[in-house]
């Protein structure tokens, strides 16, 4: 896909993400497709994911910002809101999406999601939960074979 007719909004957001990165988040656009982002999220402190580095892929569809970005975890992660393929169940990516939201907001919401959603699960069955998490420890270095949004 050509990057020449890229909307000003995407250019502005990309520039801001690179110049003022959000804490614990690193996002950089792909060289061949500026709508495709390689994202790295650090496991939030005081959460079961502390110390982990998670890779995500983020793709901005043609209709963006009227349509939500498509995001997927490439690193395997044990989380009630994330399935085996790394697809995330998050309100702002579905019916609660608004064009006033952006890449930064979405990624910051992921950090919140991984910090707070699991508190109940973790408190009820801590040993079971940590065992499950340790199974995925090796997955922190997981390399994606192919990004399914890449064009």
């Amino acid at each position, binding site marked *: 896909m050509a990057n020449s007719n890229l*909307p000003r*909004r995407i250019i502005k*957001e990309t520039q801001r993400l690179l110049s003022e990165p959000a804490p614990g988040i690193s996002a950089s656009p792909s060289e061949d497709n500026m709508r495709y982002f390689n994202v790295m999220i650090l496991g939030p402190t005081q959460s079961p994911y502390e110390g982990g580095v998670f890779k995500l892929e983020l793709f901005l569809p043609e209709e963006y*910002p*009227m349509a939500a970005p498509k995001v997927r975890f490439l690193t395997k992660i044990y989380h009630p809101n994330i399935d085996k393929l790394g697809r995330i169940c998050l309100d702002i990516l579905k019916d609660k999406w*608004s*064009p*006033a939201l952006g890449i930064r907001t979405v990624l910051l919401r992921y950090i919140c999601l991984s910090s707070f959603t699991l508190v109940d699960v973790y408190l009820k069955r801590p040993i079971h939960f940590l065992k499950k998490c340790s199974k995925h420890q090796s997955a922190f270095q997981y390399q994606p074979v192919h990004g399914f949004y890449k064009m």
Partner: protein
Amino acid sequence: MKFCKKYQEYMQGQEKKLPCVGFKKLKKILKKCRRNSSSLKPLNASLAAKTCPDHCPVCDGTFFPSLLNEMSDIVGCFNQRAQKLLELHLASGVRKYFFWIKGKLQGNHTALIQEGKDLVTYALINAIAIRKILKKYDKIHYSKQGQLFKSQVQSMHKEILQSPWLCELMAFHINLRETKVKSRKAHALFDGCSLTFKDGKPSLTCELFDSIKVDIDLTCSICLDTVFDPVSLTCGHIFCYICACSAASVSIVNGLKSADPKMKCPLCREGAVYEGAVRLEELNILLSRSCQEYWEQRLQTERVERVKQIKEHWDSQCRAFVGV
């Protein structure tokens, strides 16, 4: 000088009788409440700490309804007068002549500026008055009912600082400021408006005797650029016209009036905000003068988009007509 006195002096100084906040009446209600609560001897120390309960029937039955009525009158009067003034200023030659014949155009250019200035002052001084009386309510009741009432009023669109006409009047004032105006008032309350650029982001600022500062951000949160052909939704948020149309899922041809009432504001997610949207023409003039290069560039891209949407609209109309 206490604000209450300053406010009453200002309101009495107005040539026309305008709706205002009944400061004395509302203070009387609060005093009455204070007396009632102090006459009831508290049984224990914990009750003594509070002057009045969180939900006070004495106040809630009279204080909030009367304040709400006053706020409605103030906003209604302000919007009506501002709309009239701007309609007069933006009118084309023939319409302007027609207005003049009807006797709407009193005085000259200077009178127009002065009236605009007076209206902005009227809006700001009433906003302060409302804020002060609600603070007093919360102080007496040790509650947050005043703040809660304020947020309810905002959702009802009866908050004067939320009015799109305030933004328009501020832009109008800046647009016509070249002419030096001698104020009719003895004391200058109003410091004036200014268009400022912080890190390339524009905003309209206005101050009233160090008590209130209105700061209106002029960056569209959809395209992240300076608003172009700005439109204010009924919730008070400002967007570019094209961006607002896209957010409302309507074409430029059909306009925002045809938007589904279920469509929400991208910022506050409030429903049914597109139908009563206001085109901010004075602000458009101001911004086109302030950032000409950007305006020219944006004008070209917008033209392409508009032509594309109009073409699509007529294609679909033709297909529907032919029955394809």
